[in-house]
């Protein structure tokens, strides 16, 4: 007979994590920029070192995706994320003499990061590192399909951060996700922000949790090739992008729309690039296979093109990377215009560019508004018209959308969380960045020129006033007794004792004083 109340047990597990997260955030929120930089670097480097091992583990555990492609994403969300944000400072107050303001960063606090099964490690990396950059603590709640590899990733990053001076528990992970535990975390007033990446259900519950939340909606990416495009490049990029990680991402192209004038040429280029152009019968077989009774069969999520072809009794050469299935009308009842989490690309021929835009909009009416679309074109008018017409918040131009919209092959902010904005029922319209986890207190001075900001009013107190991790309380104890006398974790203490840092702080103080002096002159 088991008397245990499971729900109570889960809630108490959640509460234990929240206690640790609250204290970690309380401490970490007052670390200075150089301490934060050290910590972020250490965690990112640990992530980079484990990129391949964890890519393999992710494919092994979830059964989908491509190791090589996951390595690329893991490196993107560790090494590249670090590079892209080197020099950015989300910790130091900023004095702006022109606007007569002082902006003081205030971290969100305790972040709950919900991560998907499709990008498990990369999303853990990205959210954890952004939380570290923003001086937040984070609890990762992974998709149950990927819980082991996510736990491993989170523990490794936490350990690296802690070794570099972060409070222990700055990154935590739900090892055994359960509905009551996650519900409790989502609703807890100890959570300051939820960042939900995953299916619509989890995103909607994040928004109805009563806590501040960024949830991002699904994608269903239309890609248009117009008559001005370099067809060879377009075909190669589309096949590369569609086959990336076996197309399990929300950023993989879903439906290709091509202007009739260049349709046949493009198809030939697609075939050369590794696409199999399905016959009408083959397309019908794919529909039946992937969408029995109109619902996508999840057994095919993230499987490669050849195994899908085989299952549909389509004969393809070994070099095939994607299957392209042509259809006529873009209406919701057409299964192939829905999101297909495998390397099957819908293909539609449009009468002209206006018709292509209409069809792309139709794809987004099915699902994916606010997310992204791709365009291959060299016509400036078309590019502008396309951007204005489509209900998406990013357009990948002459680049595969998989790594284009997530910022790894474009200059968009690199991320695994693509804000779908109001169009996609989200409060986040951009690619998630570290500064989305920070708000700023702005001290705003009277515009009257007679009013000047007094000296030092920006305060240099943002220097770990809560201290790092407390020392082990040893009152009344004569000698180490052989037990572990460290605090819960051993940490070097970054801070004033570090001579390099003292010098740097003095330098920063000087710079700010000079700025202030300028300001008073103005």
């Amino acid at each position: 007979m088991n008397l245990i109340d499971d729900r109570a047990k889960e809630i108490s597990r959640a509460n234990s994590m929240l206690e640790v997260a609250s204290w970690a955030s309380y401490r970490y929120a007052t670390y200075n920029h150089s301490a934060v930089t050290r910590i972020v670097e250490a965690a990112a480097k640990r992530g980079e070192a484990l990129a391949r091992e964890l890519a393999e583990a992710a494919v092994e555990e979830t059964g989908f995706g491509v190791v090589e492609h996951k390595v690329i994403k893991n490196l993107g969300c560790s090494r590249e994320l670090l590079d892209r944000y080197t020099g950015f400072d989300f910790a130091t107050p900023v004095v702006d003499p022109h606007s007569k303001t002082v902006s003081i960063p205030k971290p969100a606090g305790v972040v709950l990061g919900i991560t998907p099964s499709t990008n498990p490690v990369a999303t853990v990396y990205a959210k954890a590192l952004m939380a570290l950059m923003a001086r937040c603590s984070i609890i990762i709640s992974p998709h149950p399909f990927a819980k082991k590899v996510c736990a491993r990733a989170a523990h490794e990053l936490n350990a690296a951060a802690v070794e570099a001076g972060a409070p222990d528990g700055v990154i935590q992970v739900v090892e055994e996700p359960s509905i009551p535990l996650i519900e409790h975390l989502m609703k807890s007033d100890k959570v300051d922000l939820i960042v939900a990446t995953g299916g619509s259900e989890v995103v909607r519950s994040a928004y109805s949790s009563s806590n501040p939340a960024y949830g991002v909606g699904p994608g269903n990416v239309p890609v248009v090739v117009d008559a001005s495009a370099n067809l060879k490049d377009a075909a190669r990029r589309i096949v590369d992008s569609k086959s990336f990680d076996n197309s399990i991402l929300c950023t993989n192209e879903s439906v290709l729309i091509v202007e009739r004038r260049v349709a046949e040429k493009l198809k030939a280029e697609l075939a050369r690039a590794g696409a199999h152009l399905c016959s009408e019968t083959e397309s019908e077989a794919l529909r039946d296979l992937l969408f029995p009774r109109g619902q996508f069969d999840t057994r095919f999520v993230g499987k490669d093109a050849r195994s899908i072809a085989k299952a549909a009794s389509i004969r393809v050469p070994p070099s095939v990377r994607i299957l392209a299935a042509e259809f006529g009308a873009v209406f919701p009842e057409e299964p192939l215009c829905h999101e297909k989490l495998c390397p099957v690309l819908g293909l539609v021929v449009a009468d002209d560019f206006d018709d292509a835009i209409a069809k792309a909009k139709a794809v987004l009416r099915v699902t994916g508004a606010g997310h992204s679309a791709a365009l291959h074109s060299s016509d400036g008018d078309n590019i502008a018209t396309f951007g204005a017409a489509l209900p998406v918040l990013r357009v990948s131009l002459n680049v595969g959308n998989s790594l284009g919209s997530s910022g790894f092959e474009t200059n968009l902010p690199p991320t695994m969380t693509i804000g779908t904005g109001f169009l996609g029922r989200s409060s986040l319209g951009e690619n998630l960045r570290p500064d989305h986890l920070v708000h700023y207190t702005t001290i705003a001075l009277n515009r009257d020129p007679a009013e000047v900001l007094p000296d030092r009013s920006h305060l240099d107190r943002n220097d770990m006033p809560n201290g790092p991790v407390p020392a082990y309380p040893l009152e009344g104890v004569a000698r180490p007794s052989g037990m572990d006398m460290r605090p819960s974790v051993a940490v070097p203490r970054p801070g004033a004792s570090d001579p390099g840092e003292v010098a740097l702080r003095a330098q920063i103080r000087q710079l700010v004083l000079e700025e202030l002096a300028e300001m008073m002159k103005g």
Partner: protein
Amino acid sequence: MTSIQDASVGDEDLDFGYFRFASKAEMLEKSKSYWNPDKTQFWSDSGIPLVVDRREEYFLYDITGKRLIDVHLNGGTYNLGHRNPEVVAAIKAAMTHFDIGNHHFPALARTALAEQLVATATPGMSKVIYGSGGGEAIDIALKTARNATKRSGIVSIVKAYHGHTGLALQTGDDRFSRIFLSERSDDFIQVPFNDIAAMEQALASGGVAAVIMETIPATYGFPLPEPGYLEAVKSLCDRHGTLYIADEVQTGLMRTGELWGITKHGIDPDIIVTGKGLSGGMYPISAVIVNERSSGWLGQDGFAHMSTFGGAEVGCIAAMVTLDICSRPSTRLAVHHAADVIGHGLRRIQASYPDWLTGIRQNGLVIGLEFNHPEGAKYVMKHLYANGVWAIFSTLDPRVLQYKPGLLVSPALVEELLDRTALAIGRSRDEAARSKGVRS
């Protein structure tokens, strides 16, 4: 009729279904008539007219609705907060199957908790004997030591407090024994705290069964042992064949940042006594954890000590959950953080009132605040109460306030507590100064 959960917090019509009072005044009158007139009057006179109604997390609510942050916690009874949901759920579940149990028979929950207590105690522990309260457990510990050593002497410290039962009372200050004509018999020896020479002298006679020692004497206002004192006492015990009984009723269960305060001293006691917080403040239970050397009578005559309610099985389940929560790494981490922030905060307050808050005694979340007035803590207690904090003076040294925040306090609650404490300490200083208590 109002249910117990949402009982009216107004001054009138205190209807709890099972009982009702027309008003707080009527309740206090009846409390004097039927319960304890002196104690009831004492609190009214002390400016603390508290009748605890609702209680949750680290908050107590007077029946008028006034909210108090509880840093008395009845000596750690409410370490995990009032009505900790996890403990409550466990007790509810336990009551679908268990009751107090039959104290003569081997019992499921008692055995399971005993195993868990032995596993989490200091090395060398072997068995558990149960009581229903701290005093009873102390009596068990002392009887056990006498049986094991065949000696009758018991050494405790001057101003010791180990409870109000027969033998426990004998170890303590005569503040609690004189009135009942139960003053110390010759077997009970007292030595000053932190005085190793006195301890050596007391043990030299060779007739001492046990030294009983709170790791930090609570009712004496948490004076900290001098570095090395407890360790020296333990080695004296070893030399003289005397048992070391660690009274961990107030210092145990993670209050010092370790499950048992004594482990920070590297001491493996012969006997550990625990009570108060052991069952999350929901069900009375206490336990004596003994090593093999002390456990002789349990093999010889297991019926020699009996307790109908000792180790009641519902309480055992509450204790298992409590022990589990207290032992979690997250709890230990939270205690270290909270102790550190509170320690810094108290020192800041001390810097503002150095002539009033003259000492801070702290080990983890065991904290005594020493004031510059023979009854200083009573002033502070009153002003804390007025400002929404409930903390109690040390009965045996009213200069010292016992200040015991819960293990699971949040950073925000810590900040609020420190704000309220600073205000109350300032105001109490002013009041004490008006009554010419503070030397300047």
